[in-house]
């Protein structure tokens, strides 16, 4: 158990270090007062989690448990970047380039607010994957969809590995700040997740 969590927290530490490194280097005007404001406000806003509804079932019983999920984008490649900007963005991803058509790598720690009674999973899991954004309305600002594949690192309560892969489908509005995501996991004990997303940059 200790190994699993230390592995996950090591990854989070690496992500945070990379976040600071790339954020600082992505400013054309250098890290000034505004650069610090950007990092601080963005980081604070990223702590607002998505609310998730996860199915918890075994062969006989099914229920829904609520949880939270944070979503971080280490790298995004946009197909809609103009000649003055880079198509590649790290962590702080401009919604115009994300929603206007892009592909991104994501990592998302997840935690359920109740125990998995039937599927016998631990509350904490760590998911990574890629997703493709497709704009539908107003270059994606008004409406965009995403489709992606993911892999979740999870453990059962007895600390044996119960990793699973899955696919996800997202619908975003309000400049990408609000979204609803539907996950289908290739695991019969936790088949579905639905989440209400809040994502700012």
């Amino acid at each position, binding site marked *: 158990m200790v190994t699993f969590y230390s592995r996950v927290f090591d990854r989070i530490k690496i992500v945070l270090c990379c976040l600071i490194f790339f954020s600082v280097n992505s400013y054309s*005007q250098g890290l*000034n*007062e*505004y*650069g610090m*404001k*950007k990092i601080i*406000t*963005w980081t604070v*806003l990223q702590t607002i989690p998505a*609310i998730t*509804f996860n*199915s918890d079932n075994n062969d006989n019983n*099914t*229920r*829904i448990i*609520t949880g939270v999920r944070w979503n971080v984008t280490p790298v995004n490649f946009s197909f*809609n*970047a*103009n*000649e*003055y*900007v880079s198509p590649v963005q790290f962590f702080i991803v*401009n*919604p*115009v380039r994300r929603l*206007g058509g892009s592909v991104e790598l994501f990592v998302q720690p997840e935690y359920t607010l109740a125990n998995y009674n039937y599927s016998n999973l631990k509350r904490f899991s760590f998911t990574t994957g890629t997703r493709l954004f497709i704009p539908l309305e*107003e*270059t994606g*600002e*008004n409406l965009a969809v995403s489709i992606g594949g993911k892999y979740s690192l999870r453990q059962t309560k007895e600390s044996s590995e119960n990793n699973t892969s899955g696919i996800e489908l997202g619908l975003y*509005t*309000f*400049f990408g*700040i*609000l979204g*609803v995501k539907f996950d289908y996991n290739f695991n019969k004990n936790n*088949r*579905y997740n*639905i989440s*209400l997303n809040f994502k*700012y*940059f």
Partner: protein
Amino acid sequence: MNSKSFLIRSCIYLIILVFFFFSSGCFYFSIFTDNIGKNFHQVGKIKNKITNPLSDSVRLSALWVGHSTVILQMDDKVIITDPFLTDHFALIIQREWEAGFDISNLKKCNLVLVSHTHFDHLNFKSLKMISEQFPGTNLAFPSGLEEYLPDYDFKMWKLNNRNMFSSVYINESKIIDGIKVTSVFAKHYGGRYLFDGKWGNVGYTGYVFEYKGQTVFFGGDTGYDSLAFKEIGKKFKINLALISVGPCRNCDKDNGNNNHVSSLGAVQVLEDLKADYMIPIHFGTTKYLSDPFIPAEALKSLTEKFHIENKVKILNIGEQIILKRID
């Protein structure tokens, strides 16, 4: 519980959460919620729209499409400022009156100017319409705005400005399709999604553009700054000033706030610029928690008070004025 009931219950939870999110007391959400109801009403129709605004005998003309969108003819060149041609911006904010011109009727466009990143000035759908109708036409924008600009079919021109960091009021000039475009001072703010406005992204400017002896000032959105506008007035012999007026509360009593000039502020800017004519813009189209025509009403009485009726041309949406003809 089967999959169907799981989905239904999840949807109900989501709707409840969204309701609580939007019912918070935030000012910006108040603007949104205030405008939600309007989406069930029709946008006001403009009668007798002009279908052919261009003429060979014109040296300088302006057609006010609404808000900050003006179609200018300067001899053989056609310039569009801050194109906002759709019925909505920022997802749900609906304009009071439709755009006063159908862009499909425009035969020519040499240059599109975008002053800043805000939704009512940088309207993606409008830019896309123009880029599809006039592929490869010129688009000028201030540095910082490129972060928010999709890859439409324009020839893009970035103009540097240093609004926030120095007292340089006249910035970069570029010759675009024979038109000399200069980015000049504006007192406003950048960003598009609320918090990013505080991230030091300049992304806003005013413009002066010159062609064949005619000079037009387009201020974008700006607050009042006496030194800046006097300096611009000294440097350029401005024939026409397009000045954003409002939103404002005490429109005839003070010069406005840090981001927008009031009606009195606009008169002051006109005086500082020493322009021949002024056309007020940025009113009458969208409602920012007050009647959108208040700035124009106040400006009308101020022009009478200061006897500048011959200089200030308050247009109706869709109205065109010819300021100079070829002799």
